């Protein structure tokens, strides 16, 4: 059961129109491709994807699951949005509440075990190994956990275990953590245990795994174990961590390697043609998706499928998502340019002094300049650092042809 309903509000304009799991990543992928590919690579071939916030992009991306070989006669992928019931109709009010509302779906398959995943992490993990561990330990609940630096432990749900890795205590974002094992939001439950726990706690408002269901199982005496995971795992919850995770892919041998034959990541490919690099281009330390046309100079960047970068344009340390177009003679520094954005000629992005963002400094920071999807930026303007542009903008929106650092320019995209 893959939880993909969250907005991911700390990604700012990137998630204005799409759910976080549908945000593109690493040139051609979307975040949800990672857990979905993990599922099929681990032999999990019955997957329910729980959607709620802005599901259109997710629905079209997942379809009947062909890219992940999840188009099956039995099982396969099912998209599970909240639905109307004869009484007590409600949205998914929490992670466990979403699962609770789909007890019927799981009951049709009557599984022995249920794997709960979230759709917003970048990692490769063999869930079968975790399941073997779960069985070997005689656990009823197993939580995947990874060691984090002690000083960061207070940002996570922390698991305190005995020598056998049996969990003795949970600490949710503790001030003084007793362990550095952080829960990764990946759980395996015995189906009977999960079902009983969900029904027993059904009336709990905002029913949540970390806050309610797992402590309930633990208090009841069900054996709960921690499964230590030491591979690459990245939460891309903030713009900066999202940017960093992308940038890590362009290292010579990245820690998270997409080029291994074993454990492929699958995605829905809309674009097939190769990419064209013109005679005047310079490309260094980049990954570039299919069908891109590069006429300019691109350094240290992640470029999506079907992107056009005009002649004499310089792109550095940036993420340009699928089908975005950048005109001629532009400069882009530390930009995150979302899908289908159109940037005119001689536009300069990410120029100027650092300044704190005026609307949401906790989102737009680290000198990044963010452009929302389908945005239009007219020719000849300059946009500073920690700035954000979204919607169709025109010359009049840029007094003196510039949007200074730290400013926010968000226009509603006109309904077509």
């Amino acid at each position, binding site marked *: 059961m893959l939880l993909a309903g969250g907005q991911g509000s700390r990604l700012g304009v990137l998630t204005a129109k799409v759910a976080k799991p549908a945000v593109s990543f*690493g*040139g*051609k992928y979307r975040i949800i491709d990672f857990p979905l590919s993990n599922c099929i690579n681990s032999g999990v071939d019955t997957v329910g994807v729980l959607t709620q916030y802005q599901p259109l992009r997710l629905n079209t991306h997942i379809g009947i699951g*062909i*890219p992940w070989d999840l188009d099956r006669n039995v099982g396969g992928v099912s998209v599970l949005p909240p639905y109307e019931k004869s009484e007590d109709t409600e949205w998914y009010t929490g992670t466990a509440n979403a699962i609770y509302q789909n007890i019927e779906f799981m009951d049709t398959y009557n599984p022995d075990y249920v794997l709960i995943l979230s759709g917003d992490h970048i990692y490769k993990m063999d869930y079968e190994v975790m399941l073997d561990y779960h069985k070997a330990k005689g656990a009823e609940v197993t939580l995947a956990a990874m060691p984090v630096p002690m000083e960061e432990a207070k940002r996570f749900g922390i698991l305190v275990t005995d020598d056998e890795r049996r969990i003795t205590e949970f600490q949710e974002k503790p001030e003084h953590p007793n362990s550095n094992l952080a829960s990764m939001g990946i759980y395996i439950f015995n189906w009977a245990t999960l079902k009983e726990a969900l029904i027993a706690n059904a009336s709990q408002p905002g029913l949540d795994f970390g806050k309610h269901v797992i402590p309930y199982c633990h208090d009841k005496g069900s054996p709960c174990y921690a499964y230590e995971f030491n591979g690459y795992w990245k939460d891309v919850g903030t713009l900066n961590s999202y940017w960093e995770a992308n940038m890590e892919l*362009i290292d*010579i041998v990245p820690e998270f390697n*997409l*080029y291994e034959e074993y454990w*492929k*990541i*699958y*995605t829905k*490919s809309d674009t*097939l*043609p*190769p*990419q*064209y*690099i*013109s*005679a005047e*281009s*310079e*490309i*260094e*330390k*980049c*990954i*570039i*998706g*299919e*069908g891109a046309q590069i006429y300019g100079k691109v350094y240290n960047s*992640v*470029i999506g*499928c079907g992107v056009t970068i005009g002649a004499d344009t310089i792109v550095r340390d940036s993420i340009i998502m699928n089908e975005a177009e950048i005109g001629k003679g532009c400069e882009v520094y530390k930009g995150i340019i979302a899908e289908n954005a159109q940037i005119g000629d001689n536009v300069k992005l990410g120029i100027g002094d650092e300044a704190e963002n005026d609307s949401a400094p906790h989102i737009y920071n680290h000198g990044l300049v963010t452009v929302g999807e389908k945005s239009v930026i007219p020719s000849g303007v300059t946009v500073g650092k920690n700035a954000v542009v979204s919607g169709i903008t025109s010359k009049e929106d840029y007094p003196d042809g510039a949007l200074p650092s730290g400013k926010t320019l968000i226009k509603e995209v006109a309904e077509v």
Partner: protein
Amino acid sequence: MRAIGIILAGGNNHRMRELSQKRAIAAMPIAGSYRSIDFALSNMTNSRIQRVAVLSQYNAKSLNEHLASSKWWDFGRKQGGLSVFTPTVTNENNSWFRGTADAIYQNLDYLRESHEPYVVIASGDCIYKMDYNKVLEYHIAKKADITVVCKDMPAHENVDRYGILKMNEESRIEEFEEKPIVANSNTISCGIYVIRRRQLIELIERGAEDGQYDFVKDILIRYKNMKRIFGYKITSYWKNIASVEDYFAANMDFLKPDIRDYFFRQYPDIYSKVDDLPPAKYNVGANIRNSLISSGSIVNGTVENSVVFKGAFIGNNCTIKNSIILNDVYIGDNTYIENCIVESHDTIRANSYHKGEGEIKIVIEKNDRFVI
């Protein structure tokens, strides 16, 4: 659509030199991400033809792998679908396909069991985009027995490897010569035909009785005066792959912006099998000029005026010029390659030097990939 499709994908020839060892021409990789047969298959599906048979014979491994699933071209349907026929031993027959007409004859049941009134015959070794409905409409309007798609080649081009035809002012074909010694026209047959299904069955059966097995020689040329055979002239891009030089030129055409735009960006799309490769990666030292690079490739060196297919690895300090690097090639450091086609899955050792002098050199090195 009122037609079924037949794609002739059997052949290869000596003019493909060493490239013919591995696969039929229809399975030759084209333009970085495609194979030759994708163009005919995509044209079929974009023309809403629902039932398509691919007739193959020569070294069909690559082709069969490529066609293992028909879903990429939207043929994974309950209605219709894609069938691949290779020669089989039956009660009546135990020979290979002895020619294009024989290939159809040996699968005549497929034609008999169809109910669509027309057949579109195409070959798997041509690069083009076409709406076959337009040809069919023309065929019906002309009350033709057979319609042959044809194209005027530039006057200076050597056309002796094609079927050459001459039409009268009504577009009826009066002369048809296969690979003539001296060509007296520059209108060539594109190897695409429309014919009524029952007519085709009848002609093929009659040919088989007489021991005649070639569609062009024994049907088009034999019946050119007795049947109403018309030419449908196209002016759009069309290229046939029959030799190493053709193959090289067809790939290099995709470096031209108008041709790239025509095939990659204009409706309708060309489809191909999806390989789930990561984006192409350019490390420090990469220097790319006027080239096509496909997904899954990792580039550390210089690439100029070249087409690099999927999953290639180009080592440090390499120079690749005017060359085609086929799928999954590994090129060791400090290698120089110019005017070459490097065969797929090849491993080129570090410090190698390959240059085609006067003609395109085909590089086949069956080295072990990982030498310690």
